[in-house]
């Protein structure tokens, strides 16, 4: 049987396609790459910092995410050191040393070292990115 170059190339490619088309055993889905732990009642935090650095004298810098689910109220959010926070999504009532403020997405605020810090979720889900400066 006479094969042209074109036919041979086509057959070779078709064979490659056939070889690569292989059924495999069904599998379980993959787990998410970012996981969350219970930081305190009512609030979850990244299980591992998203970023960490010891380059600041006397402090360890950590970036973590805080998540409050529907109807959650965290009366005491334990952040060691001081922290700069950004509300990434949702609406929250933020209370620092007894002073309550309503915060909406895009807001930034500061939590002094040793402050009593509470968050009440006023939205479906509230997510906060926290940059924490923790004394070493």
């Amino acid at each position, binding site marked *: 049987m006479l094969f042209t170059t*074109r*036919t041979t*190339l*086509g*057959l070779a*490619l*078709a064979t*490659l*396609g*056939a070889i*690569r*088309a*292989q*059924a*495999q055993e*069904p*599998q*379980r*889905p*993959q*787990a*998410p*790459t*970012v*996981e*969350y*732990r*219970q930081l305190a009642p*009512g609030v*979850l935090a990244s*299980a591992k910092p998203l970023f960490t650095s010891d380059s600041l004298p006397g402090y360890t810098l950590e970036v973590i*995410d805080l*998540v*409050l*689910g*529907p*109807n*959650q109220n965290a009366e005491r959010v334990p952040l060691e050191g001081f922290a700069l926070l950004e509300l*990434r*999504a949702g609406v929250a009532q933020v209370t620092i040393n007894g002073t309550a403020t309503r915060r*909406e*997405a*895009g807001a930034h605020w500061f939590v002094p070292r040793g402050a009593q810090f509470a968050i009440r*979720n006023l*939205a*479906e*889900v509230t*997510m906060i*990115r926290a940059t924490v400066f923790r004394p070493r």
Partner: protein
Amino acid sequence: MIGTLSPRIAIAVLVLTGAACAHGSSDWPMHRYDAARTASQPTNSPLANPAGLGTLHQVWSWHPAAVGDADVGATGWGFSASPIVYDGKVFVAHLNGRLYALTTAGAFLWKYPPAPGPGLVSTTMCNPSSPGIASTPAVAAKVAGVPAVIFGAPDPTSDNGDGRLWAVNANTGALIWKSPVLAARTANEQIGYDSPVITKHRVYVGVSNHCDNPIIAGKLYAVELNTGALVAGFTTFVAAPSRGGGIWSSPAATPDGDAIITTGNGCVAYNGGCTTEPSPNHALSMIRLQRNTGAMIWKFQPVPWSLDGDPDWAAIPTVQQSSCGHLAVAPMKDGYTHALKLGPSAPTGDPVALGLSLRQWSFPPASIPFTSGTHGDTRYIRGAAVWKDAIYVVTGGRDVTINVTAGYRRLYGLNACASDFERVRWWLQFPGSGYPTMGAPSVTRGIVYIGTSTDTLYAIADPDVFPPIGTQCDFPGVSNAACVPNGFRLTPIPAILARVKLSGSIRTTPAIAGGRVYVTTDAGFVHALSP
């Protein structure tokens, strides 16, 4: 929609629309199945039987090299277009500028343009939308007395690649008509990824640009199905006075023939040179256009000009007939998926106010229009498939604002008519990486087919048709133990019934027809699989 009607009424609807009838047959005649872009094959077949999918395997594959045509190396990137199936034939368009017709047994029938002439390519190249035929064709049951394949492509004989619509005889590949130039190459316009939709004896197609360099004003044209001429009385939609609002997706059609479109980024300082918001600015919007006049009925613009970080609305909208009415659904590049009621079929007052009032929900939940946050050029660009009240979509999840790229690897099932709390039906995370990782889903009677950048086609069973394998929290990364105490919901984990390794990355839509699933890959192969 039509699938719930009697055969007599369905035939009448076919005659009225001019489109090839998908409902009631096992064909897959246009991009994402039908004019509503449901990507949902209602006809029963072994592909809808969970018990038999463990044997899903390749029946045949085909590569353009079999007929002497170039793939990677000449113009590159393999297939950007998805296959369609009609009356025993598979039609697929290639970035090398050819439209191919195969039998459903994998035998080559014809190509357009025929050899030895050049393919339909442009001399402007910047990404896979540019060189040849990047979008999926559509079949009309009858044009000039014969079934016709309609597609958008550059015309190398017109200024080295002006964009037109083309109609060729589905049986022979002979040219029936070419439309006027719709996308002027020297103005940096292109049809690109935009797949034509056929409805009510017309064809809608949108225009975007080559790589935003520079951006142009997006347009939507309506073309007569029988002649390729512009539809008289339909004013071409133009998204902005000079630049912005390119239509990178594809139009969908409502049951009465109105166009639903999604538009791309606007003219801003860093892209287009606009230091103030253009007026009008129809960028970053989902829009309904009235079929007779092209008048805007409503516009939904969730990301305002001030926050335009290039989150093109690049995903094709899907018109879903759900138990809570007809919805228009699409994810946006920033990872949010929005659902709107279709609303009235004629303009009534302010289109912007009407668009906002028609919003049913956003996922994840959000106040619209946004007033803050990052809305950038992330890659949620695949349209949704729908089945009953379920929506299957690659979208950002509840964690999108803190982990915006995590959703590239996830497929969500959403409940169209539930509360925000119960929006997530299920979700799955897939292996691999990519930008994005996932292709676009298709579904047949609760079995979802989707390809990935790991060269793999998956078959997934909605828990309504096959038992789930467990539960997981609807907020990804939260353990089952912490889920409910933190106010979230446990959702079923659907079973993955099959995964089949194919020849290359799959960024297209699997076509489900006649008991087979047809898939195109970046490696330039068409694969046909069956259980």
